[in-house]
């Protein structure tokens, strides 16, 4: 089975994030594999171990992403591909990334493509579904379980906390949700072996794409941190009074009822 994983390098949202002039300060940020993409990598490795074949991890970014690609190789992926945007002069958005991935995957022989449900940095969840559309293949998002049997695929999908069971067929693109698996730690021998595994770098020209045609379709006007959490309010008095006050606050101040 030919398995591809779409991976994004993101800053670690559990660390402190600083925004200067609408841009996330990369100096102080810690970078990681998007946690949802880790589920995708793990599931890809499990599928390969069960059905044979190869796992290729693909990312769109710059050479900084090599460390995250190597980490995926250390976890057990077989090959990595970096679509390098270093020399891309136009703005980049989800459209651009999806076009680049689609152009790459069109030339590949794939059975299943896995991605994260969303990236933790912008939480758009755009790229993987766009790639599936671009390739014209089936797609199922936010999966929490998958069984492949020949061409037949049985999937459990998270629907706002409920489970939806879906039967579909290869070729297929899925996006992975928390609960699908527990991603493994890359082992030390894995880290050492990763050094010797193939990591290919391509650019837009290699993919026969035109910069202007895939330039961003959206424009980011501003980026800012959420407002700091204000102090809470402790109500006082008899329970009846407190309930009345709470209802009136919810109605008049918070305007939620």
């Amino acid at each position, binding site marked *: 089975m030919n398995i591809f994983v779409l991976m994004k390098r993101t800053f670690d949202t559990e660390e402190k994030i600083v925004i200067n002039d609408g841009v996330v300060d990369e100096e102080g940020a810690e970078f990681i594999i998007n946690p949802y993409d880790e589920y995708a990598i793990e599931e890809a490795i499990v599928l390969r171990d069960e059905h044979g074949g190869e796992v290729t991890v693909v990312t769109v970014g710059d050479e900084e992403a090599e460390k995250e690609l190597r980490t995926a190789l250390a976890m057990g992926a077989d090959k990595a591909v970096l679509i390098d945007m270093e020399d891309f002069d136009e703005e980049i958005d989800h459209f651009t990334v999806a076009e680049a991935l689609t152009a790459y995957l069109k030339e590949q022989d794939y059975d299943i493509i896995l991605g994260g449900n969303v990236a933790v940095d912008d939480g758009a969840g755009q790229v993987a579904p766009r790639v599936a559309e671009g390739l014209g293949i089936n797609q199922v998002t936010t999966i929490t379980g998958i069984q492949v049997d020949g061409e037949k695929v049985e999937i459990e999908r998270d629907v706002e906390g409920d489970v939806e069971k879906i039967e579909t067929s290869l070729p297929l693109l899925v996006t992975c949700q928390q609960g699908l698996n527990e991603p493994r730690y890359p082992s*030390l021998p894995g880290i050492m072996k990763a050094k010797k595994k193939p990591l290919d770098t391509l650019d837009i020209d290699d993919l026969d794409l035109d910069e202007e045609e895939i330039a961003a379709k959206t424009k980011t006007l501003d980026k800012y941190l959420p407002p700091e959490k204000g102090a809470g309010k402790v109500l006082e008095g008899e329970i009846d009074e407190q309930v009345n006050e709470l209802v009136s606050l919810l109605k008049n101040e918070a305007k939620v009822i």
Partner: protein
Amino acid sequence: MDFELTNEQKMTRDMVREFAEQEIAPHAREWDEKAIFPEETFKQMGELGLLGIPFPEKYGGSGGDTISYALAVEEIGKACGGTGLSYAAAVSLGASPIYYFGTEEQKEEHLVPLASGKALGSFGLTEPNAGSDAGGTQTKAYLDGDEYVINGEKCWITNAQYARTVIVTAVTGKTEKGKNIISAFIVPTDTPGFKITSPYDKMGVRASNTSELILEDVRVPKENILGDPKKGFSQFLYTLDGGRISIAALAVGIAQAAFNKALAYAKERKQFGQPISSFQAIQFKLADMAMEIELARNMVLKAAWLKDNDKPFTKESAFAKLYASEMATRVCNQALQIHGGYGYMKEYEVERMLRDTKLMEIGEGTSEIQRLVIARQLGC
């Protein structure tokens, strides 16, 4: 000059950091309180290849370098000093001597299980009457046919109760000048007459197993002698040179953990209407702590780099161990002070770090011995 870690070194550090944060740190307080040796955690570490970082793949190791190993010790020490100590001892003292001095057969039989993480190793040097003066070893071994017979007593031996083998040093004769000839033996822990107990109630590093060994007519095949029979003394000096790098890395880890807690606390804790981190009295402490930690880390990495590049590192590893261990006690002490009354409470964990790190000034050569080692390197 290049201060950049390689991708493999960064990946190792990141992986161990995540592992330690998830699997070790949440239990550190309980392991300390109940003096629990985390056997299961060591199995996991073995599976991840952590116990074999600096050994080649053909001996079951991971084929990494001393720098990666030092980074791993630091990360584990950040989560739990006791676990860090047992980890450092298993690799630097239990397994390394077999790698440095063992025959091909000894490596196959005794290094592979340790490097591949299937078993732990231990190193029995210290005796009730031979601590810093290891030349004063009283344990004796004599050849009887094809076997050595060992008799004696060892104390404060890390990991022995959970180990597959202990490397035991013993006197095998005297030189013409009347000095003891010391040899090292690989002794499987299930050998008859080898009694291992853990009677100690320690101040810190309580998650680490510390054992007493009693050897009564313990017989090992003569092939179990490790390295040159006459050079046991210089062999363990070399082993300890390497061990110092890991103890220094461990001290850096403990200090970093205490500093992280102190900095976070200082930013949160309000007195006189402002966070205490806005007071210069606290700022100056934090500035000194951060600086000293980084200086110690640089020394650790330099010593590790020298070792990886086959250059002499005796002096530098003593620098690293001496400075890092004394630094860590200062840093943990100040971290506790910044926490005030809360720091004195176990819940805040800095008091454990202070208790844990005190050992770094004592184990694997006291600070006084480090100064002697350095002075000797200076030609005194």
